[in-house]
């Protein structure tokens, strides 16, 4: 395996709610290596989305630590964490919700470049147009606002925005779950293509086993805040070890005749 990019070391996240303490993530250790896609599967409430936010340093860990390319995210002051941000970007489940509604498509893609003062306005525009083109958005529509696009196109714009700063790590939290089947397939193709072309490292989170199987090199399965199994994709799907993984796999309903 090539060198590691980000590593979670026995991270735990406890949320305090009115009903008491909830251990959303319980002693999870994961590593994403450079150029690799790590799939993270689990059902709702398994803690997979919280893991994404912990690994992005968007929330502090209750215990344990996340190390991104040698930097302990929990120890970094806010300013230095912001400097590190361009290297890790995120794609969310709900593309409309994650785009700025009062910015046009190109405005959304230019925004991270503006925040990190990359180039001047003209060069940012040029770059944003390239990115929109890369993800398959007709650049004639660059000035339209997010709500004027369909869900699939919105997700493409969100992906273009996440790629704008040329991140090393792309964290995707259920990026295709709110999309229709035919659009999901387009976006999966886009991810495959981008990964091959840009050599991205990804943490790809989904409840959909088939989607993860298609994209991931390795897969970790989460249940009730813990990682119950982690292996290379092929091994995991061919010979699942953990009873929970087996249960998940047996619940899948096939579309095509076996």
């Amino acid at each position, binding site marked *: 395996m090539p060198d590691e990019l980000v590593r979670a070391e026995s991270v735990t996240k406890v949320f305090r709610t009115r009903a008491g303490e909830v251990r959303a993530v319980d002693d999870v250790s994961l590593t994403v290596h450079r150029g690799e896609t790590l799939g993270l599967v689990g*059902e*709702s409430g398994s803690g997979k989305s919280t893991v994404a936010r912990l690994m992005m340093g968007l929330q502090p860990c209750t215990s344990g630590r996340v190390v991104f390319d040698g930097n302990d995210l929990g120890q970094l002051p806010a300013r230095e964490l912001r400097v590190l941000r361009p290297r890790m970007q995120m794609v969310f489940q709900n593309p409309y919700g994650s785009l700025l509604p009062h910015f046009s498509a190109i405005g959304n893609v230019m925004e991270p470049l503006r925040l990190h003062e990359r180039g001047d306005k003209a060069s940012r525009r040029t770059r944003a147009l390239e990115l929109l083109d890369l993800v398959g958005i007709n650049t004639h529509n660059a000035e339209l606002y997010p709500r004027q696009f*369909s*869900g*699939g*196109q919105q997700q493409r714009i969100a992906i273009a925005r996440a790629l704008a700063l040329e991140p090393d790590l792309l964290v995707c939290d259920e990026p295709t779950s709110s999309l*229709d*089947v*035919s*659009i*999901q*397939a*387009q976006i*999966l*193709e886009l991810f495959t293509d981008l990964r091959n072309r840009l050599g991205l490292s990804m943490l790809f989170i989904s*409840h*959909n*086993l*088939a*989607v993860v*199987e*298609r994209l991931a090199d390795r897969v970790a399965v989460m249940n009730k805040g813990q990682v119950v199994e982690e292996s290379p*994709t092929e091994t995991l*799907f061919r010979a699942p070890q953990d009873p929970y993984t087996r*249960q*998940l*796999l047996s*619940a*899948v*309903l*096939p*579309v*095509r*005749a076996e």
Partner: protein
Amino acid sequence: MNDEALLSVRDLRTTFGSSLTAVDGVSFDVRRGQALAIVGESGSGKSVTMRSVMGILPRTARITGGQAYFGGRDLLAIGDKELRKIRGREIAMVFQSAMEAMNPTLTLERQLTEHLIWHGLCNKAEARKRAVRALGDVGIPDPEKRIRTYPFQLSGGMRQRAMIAMAMVTEPDLLIADEPTTAVDVTVQRQILDLLKGLKDRGTGVIMITHDLGVARYFCDDAVVMYAGRVVERAPMASLLDDPRHPYTVGLLGSSVEVGGRELALRPIPGSPPDLSRRPVGCAFHPRCPRAELPRCQTEQEILTIGPDRDAACWKVTVDA
């Protein structure tokens, strides 16, 4: 009209506002003890179809044509008062989210017995007994105690079960299920489908609206595929998935990812479904269709019989066959 059909929908047309036709000439039959899948993506009109039949359309929508025969009556013609007598008793509904179907301020008992009492099917004590039995049937542990709880006190999976119990308690002839498992986890999905199967075995006809082809295959006997408000293909479930004919159905299958299908190339449909206010002329699918031939595909296409129990709305299909 099909004699053995429980529900026969003919040429249903539903319009929003002045000109947006969301459902455009849809016909299908549901048989007793059988399940029909209405398959389609968002905006295909599958939910509007169901809501039209049930008379629960939003105020901006209007049914502008067609019939829906159920037990000798046309549901579209009998009026709201009559329809209310049928709804909840002879026809029940299950939704994607129990939250939208259940009243958060009433206990399960009130909600489960309400229809029984209101429709005069039995007295209060008997209704309670039947409600407890229904909750037990859907696998809710300790139903005697749970019947006194409110919906929000249940977990998502349990709530979905309670909603199914609510639909089952009047022993309806027809059940309409709108994406009943989309909001639940895979491990729960199978259990819920098995529950619904029990209902089907007792002779209830089911319409299942779904975008999930795996769910459709597991549960349904027949299928209609909808695109942009019209039926594009109609076939027995297994034949549809093993041998899809309409280019849109072929595209849907080419877009489905499946466990164990890693090596199978994805063949996504390019573009996105049309905005119904700017529906393409002729076959609405032609701008995305790999087999489209202009100008032939820009003319209106009737649905054609292409085999026993099979229809498709594409002239190319018959040419090939």
